[in-house]
């Protein structure tokens, strides 16, 4: 008889992520895809793909937990758990010393503080504004005429960053444009933008108190410029787990494992 599997699905604003675990919490498979409109179809497609690739029979899925913005509409799950709890659970699983999780996703950023047992004791989220999120980086990369992937490396080559004081995405973009028109280099503007994001994210983190170990999750953790800048500004080592985008889905799968065993 095939072993049972536990599914975690994270339907975010930009991407969907799926992680399948076995009973020992070993990863059987994982995947990531663009969310498209609403993320529901993308999530179903990705689940089937991950199950197929990891040779898990659909009937062997013992429990499914969904998280992320699309969780509410996603019917094919046993439970829904907030992203906050899932990122905390996932990060704690990957690094037992985790006390602070900073998750920078497509449309929001979160700072989560955990106690020694991994329990969430406080959290803060950016308000309605998209500054300090993946979407902000996309807009700014567009303004600089580079891809999001190039932005971090570009910023790392600057030693004289410009100052971006606006925290609003739209105003920050026009600030960046005015720097460019005054002849500032791409590198300096890129680094200025990253510094602005990082100071905003660290301001958010200060609301919950930043204790080591600090784990950075979400798609923006792939940006090396952000990681370097967060570490520099906070004078703290910021650890990025392998595959930081799927930490929320991993946490959801760990919840599925917990619920699946107790139900």
């Amino acid at each position, binding site marked *: 008889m095939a072993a049972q599997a536990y*599914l975690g699905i994270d339907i975010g604003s930009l991407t969907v992520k799926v992680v399948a675990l076995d009973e020992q919490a070993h990863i059987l498979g994982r995947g990531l895809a663009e969310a498209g409109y609403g993320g529901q*179809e993308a999530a*179903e*497609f990705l*689940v*089937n793909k991950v*199950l197929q690739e990891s040779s898990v029979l*659909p*009937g062997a*899925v013992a429990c*499914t937990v969904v998280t992320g*913005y699309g969780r*509410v509409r996603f*019917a*094919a*799950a*046993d*439970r*829904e*758990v*907030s*992203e*906050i*709890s899932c990122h905390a659970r996932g990060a704690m699983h990957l690094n037992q010393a985790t006390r602070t999780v900073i998750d920078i996703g497509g449309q*929001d950023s979160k700072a989560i503080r955990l106690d020694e047992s991994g*329990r*969430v*004791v*406080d*959290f803060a*989220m950016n*308000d*309605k504004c998209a500054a300090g999120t993946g979407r902000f980086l996309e807009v700014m990369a567009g303004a600089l005429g580079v891809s999001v992937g190039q932005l971090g490396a570009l910023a790392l080559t600057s030693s004289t960053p410009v100052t971006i004081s606006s925290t609003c995405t739209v105003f920050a973009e026009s600030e960046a444009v005015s720097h460019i028109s005054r002849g500032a280099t791409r590198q300096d503007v890129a680094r200025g933008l990253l510094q602005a994001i990082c100071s905003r994210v660290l301001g958010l983190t200060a609301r919950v108190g930043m204790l080591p170990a600090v784990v950075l999750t979400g798609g923006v953790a792939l940006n090396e410029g952000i990681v370097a800048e967060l570490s520099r500004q906070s004078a703290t080592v910021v650890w990025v787990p392998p595959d930081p985008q799927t930490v929320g889905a991993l946490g959801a799968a760990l919840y599925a494992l917990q*619920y699946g065993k107790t*139900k």
Partner: protein
Amino acid sequence: MACPWREGARRTRKSWSDYCEGEVTVEGRRTTGVAAGPPPAADASRGLWLADPYSDWPARYPGRRAVGYFCSYAPLEILHAAGLTPLRLFPVEGTVAQADAVLPPFSCALARSTTERLLLGELSFVEAVLFVHTCDTMQCLADIWRMAGTDLKVINFPLPAVLSARGARELVQAGQRELLRALEDELGRHVTDESLRASVALYNEQRRLLSELYAWRDRLPALRLWQLSMAGFVMPVEDHISLLQQSLSVAAGADGESRRGPRLAIVGTVLHEGSILDLIEELGGQVVADDLCTGERYLQSSVELHEDGDPQTALVERTLARPVCPAKRHADRDAPERLVRLARSRGAQGVVFVLPRYCDPCGFDSVLQRRALDTEGIPHLTVETELTQPTGQLRTRLQAFLELLSPG
């Protein structure tokens, strides 16, 4: 698309249907099932009424003369005794465009939304508006409305910043006298002691019935309680008393529920939109207490009027004795201490601040209140509201907060 892994999945998400029966539609959107039975007929017939109480108010209450007010410090008894129907002005969902031309950008939704209504001529049926001097916005708004070029009469009602200060009583007394004079001179309404006594009795009865209803929080969905409270601010008090009596008789026949889930206290000012309460219960939490201007702060303390007592003096005493709003201070009623006591006495495990953006009295109070809660080890969450609330993020934050409060 087929979802083969869905087979065998058992949905265990907690929803309303787990502890409520039926589903009713009030205000054109799905609301909670009503544990205490069907909604009272008087309320059910009102359709979209709470979502916009103003556009058809004159048709709903023909012959009534409306006097607008914003704040629960307004002496409604005096307005009522003058033969007027007090009508509280709340933010109403909709685009705000014209108001932004006459207001600074840091104005709260209450100021922006109601001013938009005024400028669009949608409050033309209101004869006068009473501005009680609570926060800076209210005081400045009074001038903006006075100079807005409408027929609306603006009446000011000064209120001391520190209600326990020397001279506070005299200032409130003078404010009441001035209000009586304005009603007489500008609206031609004379208030007799007899009519004021009758009005005091009516509002005392309304607050007593509301208190009874609030004591049955476990028998009513929080959204329903919110609706029943809000209705009282926009309908004649006589009608509200009937509505409350009906609701109480329905609730009396219902079984008390043994609700589970984290117990929350809600803190803020005017809660003009009740969907957050529904969301809390949908996510498995329960509202056990509030410190809201449109909630418990309104119904606490009645006007102590004895047989041969002076009703005006009794009204002044209630103004000084009632729960303090964030815009005011009282030496014996410290906001952080009061909140901790409220949470402890009701067994609230967490506190949710629902604060309107740009409301500085609430914002400043909440800093000290949060610190007091931290000291006591009571977790809290702050939700900032505008005219509308993006529900996706709100849901995530509330859900995470309830998860934080849940064991395991």
